[in-house]
């Protein structure tokens, strides 16, 4: 909160450009004991809490074309992300697209140029022959702080200032 307040006190309406630069989102892909486990497709995006343009943070999918069907075909399984952001993008997208990841915790920085305000960070996961899960974390920038957890395809999703 303090950068904004300082800015107001200083009598300027300029919002500091780097209010959220130190915030990141940490996503846990849980270990699921299955003989035929496939790494999930996972996407994260941020949108204004009151509605508005969604902005993709990351999408992990089958980047390498390993057969007849390119990995992009299944991106629409990330149904919410696909509707709100994915289908309007050119993929792969620099700084957003990545390969699928196995179980573990992964940290992704929030964009540095988001204006202060209320947002919702969404993380959606879908796994072949598995389920689809959406985890939403409301946050207020610049003091980004929030967490939620999935039940099946996603573990903890933590948004925190570093």
């Amino acid at each position, binding site marked *: 909160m303090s950068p904004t307040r300082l800015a107001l006190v200083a009598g300027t309406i300029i919002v500091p450009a780097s209010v959220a630069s130190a915030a990141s989102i940490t996503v846990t892909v849980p270990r699921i004991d299955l003989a035929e486990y496939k790494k999930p497709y996972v996407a994260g995006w941020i949108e204004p809490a009151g509605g508005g343009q969604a902005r993709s943070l990351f999408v992990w999918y089958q980047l390498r074309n390993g057969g007849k*069907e390119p990995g*992009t*075909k299944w*991106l*629409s399984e990330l149904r*919410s992300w*696909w509707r709100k952001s994915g*289908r309007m993008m050119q993929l792969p997208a620099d700084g957003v697209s990545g390969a699928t990841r196995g179980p573990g915790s992964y940290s992704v920085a929030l964009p540095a140029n988001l204006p202060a305000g209320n947002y919702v960070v969404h993380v959606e996961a879908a796994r072949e022959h598995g389920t689809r899960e*959406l985890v939403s974390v409301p946050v207020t920038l610049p003091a980004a702080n929030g967490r939620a957890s999935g039940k099946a395809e996603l573990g903890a999703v933590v948004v925190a200032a570093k």
Partner: protein
Amino acid sequence: MMRRIVATSLFALLASSAALADHPFILPSNTSLAGDDNVVTFDAAASDHVFFFDHRPVQLASITVTKPDGSTGETYNGMQGRFRSVFDLKLDQQGTWKVASQQSTITGTFKQNGEERRVGPARGGRPAGGGERGAADGPGGGEQPRTGGDAAVANPEGGPRRQPPVAFENVPADATDIHLTERVSKIETFVTQGAPTATVFKPTGKGLELDPITHPNAVVAGETARFRFLIDGKPAAGLKISVIPGGDRYRDDVGEMALTTGADGVVAIRWPAAGMYWLGAEAEDSKPSEKRAENRQMSYAATFEVMTP
């Protein structure tokens, strides 16, 4: 496959007289696709229960495809069965596709030499007008496609029966007391590959049309979609809209949402849950495109896939 209007179809006759009693639909296997090499398959039928195959097929020949760039697309693997038509569509463009069926018929009566005759497709001597549909609902009922002709000339049971209907084109010049109704039924669904586009929604300004404000392939459970309806390009105020979630055979309540458009022709639909939904609307006026007809009955039906939030 490419004809926009199938001039004489007995199915259109049946559908238009009771568009909200049975539910004509074109049901896609998917409406929101990623990638660039997709095939979508469709069922097209009219049924008592929404999205079941219990009544009749939509005529395969009446199906039209509009590509995202506005050009005409083609279906393949077409099959018309007793209860449904089936076909596939290869999506070779990014954007929103429209798959539709439009049928237009003219029915009614006239007199010639004092004798009243009916106008409509030949239907084996059963009266035109659709009020007697129940008789044809049994197995192998008389709703199989017939290729025209005066079916009532042959009368296996013998005895007197009514004259067969006269095709509209054959109404004689000396006919009097002409009372004709134009019936136009339209069935649509929309499929988007990649980013949604709006070319296929451009109104033609003719008849009852959907002019969506919310993109049909961006409808979500818990959110409100807004669709405008137009008649001849003008807002259709006070139009009754019926919205039914699929699968009503497996619940006691049909679950119909009965809605009405406002003065601006807009209806707001809040989707209670994800799934496939059927929407139907009917309107009637005295502005037929066929000059010899007195009035016009229009029906519109569409299928929407409502996504999880």
